[in-house]
């Protein structure tokens, strides 16, 4: 009887698991995935380049104001071979990483505090959402007043831009922890800090990642606005170079830096999406 049940259990488990699709080989799956995410992007790039070329050909603006893709990529090719270009990227990315890291720390702390404390939520819950919708450029006059033309002014605005999204992501994640999980937590004896550590925080991770992703895009925008407005002497950042190209009427160089800024944005977005997808796969939320 006992062995009979055991065999039935194993048999049913095997049958039910076999019903799920067998996993493809990882190398092949990776190749398919890269191709699937790449071709729409490539097609979009080709269409944009073609339209751009057409606008230039139409003679709507003279070529020294609006150069075609050819001269722009030529300028870009030249820039890439210089040390100054990579130094600019280094300066800008260092600001982005430092500012964004501070934003994560502050946003997480504020979000956790607001989610845990009812009075605090009533006091500043809607303030956080208000801050999130505020265009970060608005802060610059104040930031310059506070910190003068300095790194501090840029950091201030980057943090103010990103932290509210990160805090809101965490607050939403905590608010939407499924009640059944909370009941399990209560049954297992989770209370106070252990409840946060073992249930609330891990359960809110997907929403936190989404908030962080949005926070990054706000940080990046704030940083670019900051680099155009607050040009710190000796710090030739991407924004400073962009502004410099405009001052010198160097249209191809200007567009080349815009392309670089766009590419960095896209690359970071790909990294965030990869993290998000990995999380979804672990949790079993992804369809494919």
């Amino acid at each position, binding site marked *: *009887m*006992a062995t009979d*049940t*055991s065999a*039935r*259990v*194993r048999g*049913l*488990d095997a049958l*039910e*698991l076999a019903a*799920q699709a067998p996993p493809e080989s990882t190398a092949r799956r990776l190749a398919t995935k890269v191709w699937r995410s790449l071709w729409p992007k490539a097609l979009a790039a080709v269409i944009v380049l073609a339209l751009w070329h057409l606008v230039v050909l139409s003679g709507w603006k003279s070529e020294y104001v609006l150069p075609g893709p050819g001269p722009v990529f030529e300028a870009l090719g030249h820039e890439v071979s210089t040390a100054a270009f990579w130094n600019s990227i280094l300066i800008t990315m260092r600001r982005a990483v430092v500012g964004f890291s501070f934003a994560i720390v502050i946003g997480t702390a504020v979000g956790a505090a607001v989610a845990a404390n009812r009075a605090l939520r009533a006091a500043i819950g809607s303030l956080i959402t208000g801050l999130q919708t505020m265009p970060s450029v608005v802060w610059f006059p104040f930031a310059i007043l506070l910190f003068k033309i300095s790194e501090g002014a840029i950091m201030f605005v980057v943090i103010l831009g990103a932290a509210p999204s990160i805090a809101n992501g965490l607050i939403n994640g905590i608010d939407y922890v*499924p009640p*059944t*999980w909370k*009941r*399990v937590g*209560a*049954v*297992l*004896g*989770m209370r106070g800090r*252990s409840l946060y550590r*073992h*249930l609330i925080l*891990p*359960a809110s*991770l997907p929403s936190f990642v989404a908030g962080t992703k949005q926070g990054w895009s706000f940080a990046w925008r704030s940083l670019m606005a900051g680099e155009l407005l607050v040009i710190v002497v000796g710090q030739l950042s991407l924004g400073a170079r962009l502004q410099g190209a405009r001052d010198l009427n160097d249209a191809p160089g200007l567009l080349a830096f815009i392309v670089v800024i766009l590419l960095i944005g896209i690359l970071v977005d790909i990294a965030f999406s990869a993290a998000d997808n990995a999380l979804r796969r*672990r*949790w*079993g*939320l992804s369809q494919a």
Partner: protein
Amino acid sequence: MTLTHRETVGTDAAAPTEVAVRLDGVSKVYGRGRSALVALDGVSLTAHRGQFVSILGASGCGKSTLLSLIAGLDPITAGRVDTSGHRVALMFQEPALFPWLTVTGNVEIALRMRGVPRRRRRPEAAQLLEAVRLGGFEQRRPHELSGGMRQRVALARALAQDADVLLMDEPFGALDAMTRDLLHDELERIWRERLLTVLFVTHNVREAVRLGDRVILMSSRPGRIQQEFPVRHPRPRRIDSSEVAELAATITDTLRAEVARHGH
């Protein structure tokens, strides 16, 4: 509505009749004033150690509320719940496993909350998973398992609490008949091996008869104990046997009358 349960003890009379769970006139009211809802009204019930008690009722009879009260998840409005020092675990219809943990992680978290030291958790979890016949699936993620397997992980997690009273809230309600049948056998085996006291809530009459030493029928709105049926058929029982079907038919008739009462 007080019932004496002495004559209904399914295990033989010579067995020690240590009380595991005792409810005395337990009531639960949600809200207050005009909108107050009486979920449970004066429920008294005694479950002896090692007993398997099926609790049966139509919707709105407060079966789930009853288990929440016994587990201490909800405050009681009136009456008394006494689990006299027994550890209580509760299982739900959904396995509610944590997706960020592996199968063994989901069991180990229960051990951790119980204060089991780190190096003993992994082997203990492995033993519990072996007990629900999930050895070899330790490193899987919950979403990679079938519904029946997930519910067995939830059972292993409940056992990890080292509880001797197991409260089950329609634990097999979402499973197909074949899997459910199998899990009945498995639950019966584990119940016997570990001398558990089980309070098993269901709306499936045959399931109640298949598993229980006693079947307690509850009335709806407010939830009260309406009647109790001892099940004396020898184990192992089959859910499709004529003895089970016969008693189930009697209980179903009573249940139907109770449901019809609310139609008037």
